[in-house]
């Protein structure tokens, strides 16, 4: 077996295509991001090397701090929202006794199929302070809870995180469905013979077996939160003011609107480093148990 898995030729040919395409099209550009973060550069021409000056400025920038705080809020919010709902819904839909499970399954995934633009326009309309559905609903019910959902400097970030979480929950749901489907039936049968209730069966069998799926989901939502951009860009333009800025937004603004490309790249570099840290932590958290299972 060991011989089988250390076939050098196979390793080479199996990894080559992915590595090649990735290195040329993504990794090389990423190295450029890091290189240019040390330059005073407007995006064109050659620029001048200024060492860590961009980073020094960045760490002093109040928007940088705010962006990090927003990233944290955003990541945690979407992670909790998506993983909880995706778990619940995937268990419900995969339960053969649930009525209309096909309809439910298709529905939960629909927001993923739509483009971000459509979803953002929809929520912009729903959350509009004057004519929005949500405020009208509160009005109709007689509740005095009308809000400026997207222009509250302290809470707008949560609202935007919600829109993102809502749209992409369907994808985590699909991943979990795939994970559940891949669990061999005999595991359940064994649990059933033991007389476990369905809730217990899930807790003891399904969820532990979905560990790899959870790892993926966690990686997606945490890193997705850190680099969030599109929703802010369409719905609030990072606003009100800079209340919903993220590192990506900061980068975009610096590079394309202020022509401070080098500064923007410093922000992007920090972003990449943060994401690497996150993935290492996730790997570390999930590693111990993996070893136990393997042997």
């Amino acid at each position, binding site marked *: 077996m060991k011989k089988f898995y250390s076939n050098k030729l196979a390793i080479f040919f199996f990894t080559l295509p992915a590595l090649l395409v990735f290195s040329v099209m993504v990794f090389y550009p990423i190295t450029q991001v890091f290189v240019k973060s040390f330059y005073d550069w*407007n*995006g*064109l*021409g050659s620029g001048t090397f200024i060492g860590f000056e961009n980073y020094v400025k960045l760490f002093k920038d*109040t928007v940088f701090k705010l962006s990090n705080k927003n990233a944290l809020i955003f990541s945690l919010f979407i992670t909790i929202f998506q993983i909880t709902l995706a778990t619940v819904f995937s268990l419900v839909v995969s339960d053969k006794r649930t009525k209309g499970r096909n309809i439910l399954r298709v529905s939960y995934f629909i927001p993923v199929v739509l483009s971000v633009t459509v979803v953002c326009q929809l929520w*912009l309309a729903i*959350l*509009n*302070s*004057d*004519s*929005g559905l949500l405020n009208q609903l509160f009005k109709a019910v007689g509740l005095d809870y009308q809000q*400026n959902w*997207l*222009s*509250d*400097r302290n809470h707008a970030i949560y609202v935007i995180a919600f829109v993102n979480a809502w749209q992409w929950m369907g994808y985590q749901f699909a991943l979990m469905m795939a994970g559940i489907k891949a669990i061999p039936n005999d595991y359940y049968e064994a649990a059933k013979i033991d007389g476990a209730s369905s809730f217990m069966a899930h807790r003891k069998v399904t969820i532990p077996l979905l560990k790899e799926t959870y790892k993926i989901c966690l990686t997606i939502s945490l890193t997705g939160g850190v680099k969030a951009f599109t929703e802010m860009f369409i*719905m*609030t*333009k*990072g*606003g*009100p*003011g*800079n*209340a919903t800025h993220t590192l990506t937004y900061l980068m*975009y*603004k610096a590079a*394309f*609107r*202020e*022509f*401070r490309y080098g500064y923007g790249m410093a922000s992007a570099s920090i972003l990449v480093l943060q994401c690497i840290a996150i993935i290492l932590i996730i790997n570390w958290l999930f590693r111990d148990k993996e070893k136990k299972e393997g042997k």
Partner: protein
Amino acid sequence: MKRFLALGLSLVLTMSLLVGCSNKTEETTTAETTETTTETTTETTTDSAETEEALPEGVLSLEEATLRIYAQYSDDDTKVPYDYAVEQLAIAYPNVKLELEVQAQDDGQKLMTYAATGNLPDIFQVALAQIENFKESGNIMALNDVAKSTGFEDKVFESAKNILYNEDGNIYAFPYAGNEYVVWYYNKAIFEQYGVAVPTTYDELLAAAETFKANDIVPMAIFGAEGWITAAMYDVLATRWDAGGIAKLDDGKGTADEEAYVKAAEMMHTLVNAGLFQESATTSNYDQASAMFLNGEAAMFLNGQWFMTDATATLGENVDWMYYPSYDAASYEAGKAVWSGGGAAAGYAVNPNSEHATLAAEVAAFISEKYCEAKVMYRGTPLVALDVDAEPETEFPAMMEKLQSILPEITSITKFDWHLTNGTFKTTLEDQTKYMLVKDYTAEEFITELGNSLAQ
């Protein structure tokens, strides 16, 4: 076996589709064009050899080329002038073909990438900030000679010379828009209905807002999703205290903590908290806010003077503009000559590395001139860069006549947000003035952030 065959077949098919569509079409089209071009060149060379001095009536050049042009082309304000220019180009430059690529609303990402990859179109529309950026990297052509040879320079209005020359004295773009103005529109019918007089001071403005609000009318609609209009609002206020407005800060001649800017920020804060703007102001886009005004749901509206045509088309007699209100009667009167708005040396630029750079420059000048004509003839605005010999198709709106009549009295204008040259100040100003639309955002915070951006 069958499956393999099917798989192989489909693979081959997709491959050929992929390759075929990209390369083959290219080949055939280029083949076609070269064929036709060779034909026409032989013709034109003999032609021009014979009739060197006497080009047919209205023809400026028989030189022949296909030029790539990157321009805005999405609404009447951009399509009408472009289509007109292309029509006229066919007469003056019968052998020049334009290949239009529609400009994306992407903060210049595409243009920047084009410049970075050496793929710039022959002719492209640029904003002032981009010119500064392109200048340093040799991506924009100095058009001084062509501006002379085509007579473009002479046609520019004396009052609009400021929008022809860059700070360094060169011409980098052929402008078509003249000096433009931020106009404070109001709905006369609504004002009359509720017995409100046109406000001249902020106190009157606040009182008017109260009346409108009590009657479920939004006092003033603003498209706060766009930074330029909130910046313009702030500029309107700031110019009441200091005629320099945001332009003075942009030029580095003032600081954010000067009295004028602090007072203006405080006033904006007061107005916002008095409910001058609609609740959804921060997320309203242009179409939302203008619909409010045009539907008669909002009594006032801030926009450029180019909105006059559309406003008159919908509201007819009921729409008019007022002088900006001020902090007291004296400054109101004095402020009648001080406006927010302006122009900048931006417009159609040319790629210096273009194969047909000189021709492209001539064509760019030609197109800009035709834009001016089209804007006068079909878009109801005489505020263009060039003194063109064109009569409006229909009369200018009454509001425009009124504005035109007072133009000589205007002594000072500032800048539109998109004409600011300090990129960091510009984006901060946009974000921060938008932030001012939030009720609990204070003037102190605003001034601090603005100051920081100027210190960069």
